[in-house]
């Protein structure tokens, strides 16, 4: 992944999706025959595309990495090039190929590809898996189909135009003769594959796989307990490792009771390791620590609990959430450090406004808390190479970090992507990979590194906290005429911390005549990074709640105010492309479409008839090219905690839902993920370290709190875009807006149950 791709992950384009990438004219397929007489189709990317897309700068491997292989028995093996983290790409990408290849899904086997430049970009992030691959994968399948038809026509010596393919068979229409793909594979392997841009794709009406409910390709194996996840990897002669790091970020080892640890049962090695750079903690690289390698993980873990390490003092006074809150309150009183955007004259517009509102909003740091703790298996070979098995979202970045840190040639790092027990952005970082590789290199063996849950909580790249001081002026009609946000956020290494920025074009910028976004910065020693819908997962709560406040203050229906602000359906100017994606124009008609749909499905216009104490709240958010509106119906339990009755989501991600099963799962999962964040989730910093260390203090949503989530897709005539992230943000403000409607109490600080939770409060 190059820096353009990385920017997609960190700061997903806010005004974005569409005519997605086509494979460059210079990308081409080659065909070859397998030992068993099957057909192998291999995709070759032009050098430029490789440089841009391929993670590790290593040469195409000598192994064959076919996209498609067709065996003589008709079984089609399709490589799934991207990591599988629960987003469903291992199912979706092969569906795209299989549709155009015209084979029966039951005869398709999806196989996880390794990291290899031949596949182009291989990562899971930014909800770009579908928009980047939608056309290219179909083209690969269609090219294969065309070759099989040609092989049949040659066999029968008939014109191409008289032949057709379906369900893994080529038919000669006039004679009714048919040959299965498996039989044709060897002959097709001798043909020259067509230019990818020359192939014709199907009419969507003829789809037999795309758009059909398709279960995950590995689900049955997961339920059989097969070894699929990173934590399950077993390689010969493997030992188990743990790695203890400083509780305060950036701390270095002064000394440790290494000799004592080495003498413990089962321990094979224990040593102090040095971090790679002073700011490695912030950059999620290799940091100082103590490694313990043992015959079993439990032996290593027991030894770790006996470790006594002295860490260096910190260079700055110890940081804390409480101090951040005080600092933010102080900064909000003064002039902002910088102006991000200024339209019109906000002060003058406020002076003329019929009504002025002020409100401050804040949200906390959050941890990713993937249910599979960070882990990685690495095998250091005598020739200096390292083979890695990792549950990673970003294998290329991981390989580069390993090569750089260990001082080895990038070509000597081989990465297997395992299934990952959740990603949510955590596994875009590669800290666990470099730790495992370092321990393998130092001990010259194969090791499986596994973090315990507390380490996982204490060494994350957290979703940054943030503070907003809003001021708005309303006209007599209730419509906002002035809007100001003084955003207090965090800085690291002289720039805004990762995923802690406010985009200049964030709504309502461009829709309110006088508007100012300004920013002030607090220095931060805690690492931050992208978490599912970076930016949006925090900003939506603040902005869409304040918009709701404006509607109530102006006596307007929150739905009507949004429709009015976005205005009549129109397409705004197209921004430039980003990271290989052509960015489609922003279409206010699509905003209107999902708002009206969710209102209709939820019975929004009849909400005043709800019993006293029950309310409905609405929010809309555009992110990752997706348009999503959500309504929450909620009341309050006798103990003051919210009770969510039901959630409705209306989603516009274009004209085609590739896999409805996966698509509904992503929306339901994202909505409930956001609900849990709003209700419970909180990471606090005290004395420079993270307080919460396990699920007893970090309250992920549970079954008894999960309401029904009704999902509706609005199929608009636009290219299909991604769904891992866009459905998350609206639920947070929609819930808070519902609670306001139910109780008259406005929630301006998350999480809602901060006072009710038995975790630490600040």
């Amino acid at each position: 992944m190059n820096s353009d791709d990385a920017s997609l992950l960190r700061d997903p384009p806010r005004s974005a999706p569409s005519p997605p990438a086509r494979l460059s004219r210079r990308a081409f397929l080659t065909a070859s025959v397998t030992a068993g007489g099957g057909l192998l189709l291999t995709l070759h990317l032009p050098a430029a595309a490789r440089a841009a897309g391929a993670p590790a700068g290593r040469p195409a491997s000598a192994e064959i990495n076919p996209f498609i292989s067709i065996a003589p028995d008709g079984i089609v093996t399709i490589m799934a090039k991207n990591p599988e983290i629960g987003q469903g790409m291992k199912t979706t990408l092969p569906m795209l190929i299989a549709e155009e290849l015209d084979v029966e899904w039951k005869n398709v086997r999806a196989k996880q590809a390794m990291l290899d430049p031949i596949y182009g970009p291989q990562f899971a992030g930014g909800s770009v898996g579908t928009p980047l691959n939608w056309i290219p994968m179909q083209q690969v399948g269609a090219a294969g189909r065309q070759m099989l038809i040609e092989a049949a026509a040659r066999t029968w010596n008939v014109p191409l135009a008289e032949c057709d393919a379906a369900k893994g068979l080529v038919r000669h229409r006039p004679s009714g003769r048919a040959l299965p793909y498996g039989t044709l594979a060897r002959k097709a392997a001798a043909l020259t594959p067509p230019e990818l841009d020359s192939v014709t794709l199907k009419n969507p009406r003829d789809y037999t796989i795309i758009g059909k409910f398709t279960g995950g390709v590995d689900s049955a194996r997961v339920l059989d307990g097969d070894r699929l996840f990173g934590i399950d990897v077993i390689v010969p002669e493997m030992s188990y490792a743990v790695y203890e790091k400083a509780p305060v970020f950036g701390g270095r080892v002064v000394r440790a009771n290494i000799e004592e640890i080495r003498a413990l049962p089962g321990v094979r090695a224990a040593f102090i390791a040095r971090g790679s750079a002073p700011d490695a903690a912030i950059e999620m690289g290799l940091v100082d620590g103590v490694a313990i390698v043992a015959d079993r993980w439990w032996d290593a873990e027991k030894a770790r609990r006996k470790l006594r390490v002295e860490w260096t003092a910190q260079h700055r006074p110890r940081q804390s959430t409480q101090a951040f809150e005080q600092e933010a309150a102080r900064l909000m009183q003064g002039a902002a450090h910088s102006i991000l955007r200024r339209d019109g004259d906000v002060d003058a517009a406020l002076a003329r406004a019929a009504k002025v509102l002020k409100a401050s909003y804040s949200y906390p740091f959050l941890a990713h808390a993937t249910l599979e703790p960070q882990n990685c298996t690495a095998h250091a070979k005598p020739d200096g190479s390292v083979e890695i098995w990792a549950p990673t979202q970003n294998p290329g970045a991981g390989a580069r970090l390993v090569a750089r840190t260990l001082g080895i040639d990038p070509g000597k790092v081989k990465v297997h992507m395992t299934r990952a027990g959740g990603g949510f952005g955590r596994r875009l970082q590669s800290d666990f990979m470099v730790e495992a590789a370092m321990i393998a290199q130092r001990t010259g063996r194969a090791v499986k590194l596994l973090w315990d849950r507390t380490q996982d909580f204490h060494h994350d790249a957290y979703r940054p906290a943030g503070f907003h001081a809003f001021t708005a002026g309303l006209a007599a009609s209730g419509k906002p005429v002035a809007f100001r946000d003084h955003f207090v956020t965090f800085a690291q290494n002289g720039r805004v911390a990762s995923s802690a920025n406010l985009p200049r074009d964030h709504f309502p910028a461009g829709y309110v005549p006088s508007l100012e976004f300004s920013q002030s910065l607090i220095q931060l020693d805690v690492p931050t990074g992208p978490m599912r819908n970076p930016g949006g997962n925090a900003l939506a709560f603040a902005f869409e709640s304040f918009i709701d406040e404006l509607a109530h203050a102006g006596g307007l229906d929150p739905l009507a105010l949004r429709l009015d602000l976005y205005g009549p359906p129109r397409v705004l100017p197209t921004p430039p492309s980003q990271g290989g994606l052509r960015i489609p124009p922003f279409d206010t008609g699509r905003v209107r479409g999902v708002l009206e749909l969710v209102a209709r499905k939820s019975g929004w216009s009849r909400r005043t008839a709800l019993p006293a104490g029950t309310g409905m709240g609405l929010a809309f958010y555009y992110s990752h090219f997706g348009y999503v509106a959500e309504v929450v119906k909620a009341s309050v339990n006798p103990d003051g905690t919210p009770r969510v009755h039901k959630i409705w989501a209306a989603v516009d991600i274009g004209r085609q839902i590739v896999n409805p099963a996966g698509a509904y799962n992503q929306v339901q999962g994202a909505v409930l993920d956001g609900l849990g964040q709003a209700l419970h989730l909180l990471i606090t910093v005290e004395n420079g370290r993270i307080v919460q260390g396990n699920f007893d203090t970090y309250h992920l949503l549970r079954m008894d709190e999960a309401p029904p989530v009704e999902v509706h897709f609005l199929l608009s005539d636009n290219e299909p875009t991604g769904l891992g992230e866009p459905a998350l943000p609206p639920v947070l403000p929609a819930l808070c807006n519902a609670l306001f409607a139910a109780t008259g109490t406005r929630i301006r600080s998350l999480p809602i149950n901060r006072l009710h939770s038995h975790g630490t409060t600040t």
Partner: protein
Amino acid sequence: MRYTIRVNGRRRVVESDADTPLLWVLRDDLRLTGTKFGCGIAYCGACTVHLDGVPARACVTPISAVGTAAIVTIEGIGRSEWGRRVKSAWLDLDVMQCGYCQAGQVMSATALLAKNPRPTDADIDEAMSNNICRCCTYTRIRAAIKRAAGLPAGDTREADHE
């Protein structure tokens, strides 16, 4: 210490310290890696196994406490009628996302149904709230339990496209 335990109907002899959690005996000694590690403190349910049919958290069950109890893990649950039905309902509804919690979910759901073949929503809440799903597949877990029980599931995917 040497322990003889019964796992999925098979006698297994393991050499282990008395305080080693059953989870690590299963995963690292017996290489039954289907049972997952999530928290180590009985808060997430990823490590749920059955001891004599009762769901137990393997991460806090020392090997010395297992005794003669019959241990069933995700690798063996499909051999029981309820286990088979639960797994097939899970696949029919495409319950999982990342799948990491699902071994534990299936073990808890199977134990629930074996005891209570017609669970109410409240029963499901009670039996399943010890199992965290970070991907939040709860709506479909509920529906799949009802499907396995032969109860109307009230499909959670409202499939009408506009």
